[in-house]
């Protein structure tokens, strides 16, 4: 187990290394930040001084090596635009995104798994088919459009919910959160729902598929022959088995939402990491973009490792064995 964890962590270092090269080259080829950052009225000498101060006069491989050397010491560079360390900037935006993503996934599972069970155990009934059809819709509608419709209905027409921002926040362990105030919750409602809908659809479909398959398994029939109550059969025998794929998908979706809540954050002007990424790309703020991608890669690697652990905990047949 320990060896397995170590091996996985070593693999993740290799992944991070590969990603760093790719993202560095990609950012380098997008455009020259100098044109955006330096006052157009600056003299040629001032320009040259700025460029050399930022290290942009050196060849790309030399810039990369400097970046790599600093990164190994935990320094991901300083934002061109904000003048503060890129990681610090990202971390300051992270709680807002985390809050959004965790609440969205919570909503999707708490609502989606019971509905999925209901559908799966009533396979083929009219209500079940209606839910399954609706879930395709929920999964397919693009989130920018859905977000705009939500704003149109609940903010513009009904005037029930605020259309943008985080609202009042409360500091918890020094980190500001919105979900602890009523105003914050009203600001959270629409972005969370917008982010949750495709995952809700996914949870319903995944749970329904698992349940309708599990219900015909011998062990369920045997449990009935043992005189076990149907409530317990569903909760203990069926749910326990279908939780395995659900946890896997939830893990992957967590990583994906952290990385790609960008659209929802943009539509609702939510001051999270995704919004920061978009602004940084527009402003060619290279250190922030590179640090962001590296951080997301790291989160993905960690989440996948956690999913593997959860897998082994849920399914006794799974043993985490290091490869030779």
């Amino acid at each position, binding site marked *: 187990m320990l060896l397995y964890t170590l091996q996985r962590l070593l693999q993740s270092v290799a992944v991070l290394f590969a990603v760093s090269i790719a993202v560095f080259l990609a950012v380098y080829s997008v455009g020259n930040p100098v044109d955006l950052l330096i006052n157009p009225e600056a003299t040629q000498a001032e320009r040259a001084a700025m460029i050399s101060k930022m290290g942009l006069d050196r060849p790309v491989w030399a810039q990369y090596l400097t970046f790599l050397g600093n990164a190994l010491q935990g320094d991901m560079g300083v934002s061109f635009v904000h003048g503060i360390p890129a990681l610090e900037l990202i971390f300051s935006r992270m709680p807002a995104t985390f809050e959004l993503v965790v609440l969205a996934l919570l909503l999707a599972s708490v609502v989606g798994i019971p509905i999925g069970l209901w559908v799966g155990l009533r396979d083929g009934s009219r209500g079940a088919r209606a839910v399954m059809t609706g879930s395709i819709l929920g999964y397919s509608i693009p989130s920018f459009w859905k977000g705009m419709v939500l704003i149109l209905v609940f903010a513009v027409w009904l005037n029930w919910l605020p259309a943008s921002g985080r609202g009042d926040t409360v500091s918890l362990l020094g980190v500001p959160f919105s979900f602890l105030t009523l105003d914050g919750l009203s600001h959270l409602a629409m972005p969370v729902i917008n982010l949750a809908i495709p995952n809700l659809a996914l949870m319903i479909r995944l749970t329904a598929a698992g349940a309708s398959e599990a219900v015909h398994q011998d062990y369920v029939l*045997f449990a*009935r022959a*043992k005189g076990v*109550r149907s409530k*317990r059969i569903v909760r203990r025998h069926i749910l326990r088995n279908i939780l395995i794929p659900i946890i896997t998908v939830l893990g992957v979706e967590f990583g994906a939402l952290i990385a790609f809540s960008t659209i929802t954050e943009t539509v609702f002007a939510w001051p999270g990491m995704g919004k920061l990424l978009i602004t940084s790309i527009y402003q060619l703020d290279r250190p922030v973009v590179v640090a962001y991608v590296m951080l997301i890669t790291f989160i993905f690697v960690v989440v996948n490792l956690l999913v593997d652990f959860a897998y082994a905990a849920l*399914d006794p047949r799974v043993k985490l064995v290091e490869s030779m």
Partner: protein
Amino acid sequence: MTQDSKPTPVLDVRGLQTVFHDAKGAWPAVDGIDLALYPGEVLGLVGESGSGKSVAGFSIMGLIDPPGEIIAGEVLFRGEDLRAKSEEELRRIRGIALAMIFQNPLSTLNPVLRIGEQMTEVLSEHGHDDPEAAQRLAVESLRKVGIPAPEERIYQYPHELSGGMRQRVAIAIALLGDPAVIIADEPTTALDVTIQGQIIAELQKLQADSGAGMIWISHDLGVVAELADHIAVMYAGNIVEMGPTDAVLDHPRHPYTLGLLASVPGDADPGAPLRQVPGNAPPLSRRPLGCPFHPRCEFASDICRREMPPRATDDVGRSYLCHHPVSQRAAP
């Protein structure tokens, strides 16, 4: 065991009919069967695949799901009709008084739950609320079926046990509630031959000790011959012949029983081609008119194609469904 000294049957099935619905109608998988099982007795229910023997077992348990439906008959268990009971009343009987063992031990146990939990839940779901006592009973039951180190097994998962061991666990689960009737649906078919013998011997001994009645469903006449006090031969949803084991095996009256007996390899002369019952059992939706066996029967006549034969009985307590029963002398 003679017919006269018998008490009332613990399980008395009368006219049980189970159909499967599809777009074209309802097809009988079990077509009005009568069975009587006495305490301490083994009834062998024999037939080919598709004869309806497993459906009959599940119908007695009340475990028929749509598109299947039990449409007629009585299942008198200790004098009470199970078909008249609510699902909750049935549930209370299942697993305790009326237990079942399934065919495939590899799929019967839940892969993600410990053996102990899968055993003790039988007790806890029937009002037994002392977890430690339940644990002790589970260990004891595992020991009874010959599982070594049962105190450790209850903490293991099914995949850590062999197929034979898992079937022993299933048997231990069935025995937990000290059932009056055990329905064993081909419990050794999925096992190695050597393990098969052990399990049969074990189950036979346990059943005799407990005094439970047992219905042993099998396609293997050889196995049933060793075990059963009575044999019922099923064909196309009907019990075509039923009676004391010796009478049915030594002097079968139904041509199908005769055919089955002739196709048991052990009884054939070495080197001689094995006899078979020609053709296949008809599918549910294409059961022929008249006697369902007539297309495969060497004795079939016009009346067999028109009319279902009436049930006939003879003086050894046997009944059969045939217009042209095999005469006693013609038996092998």
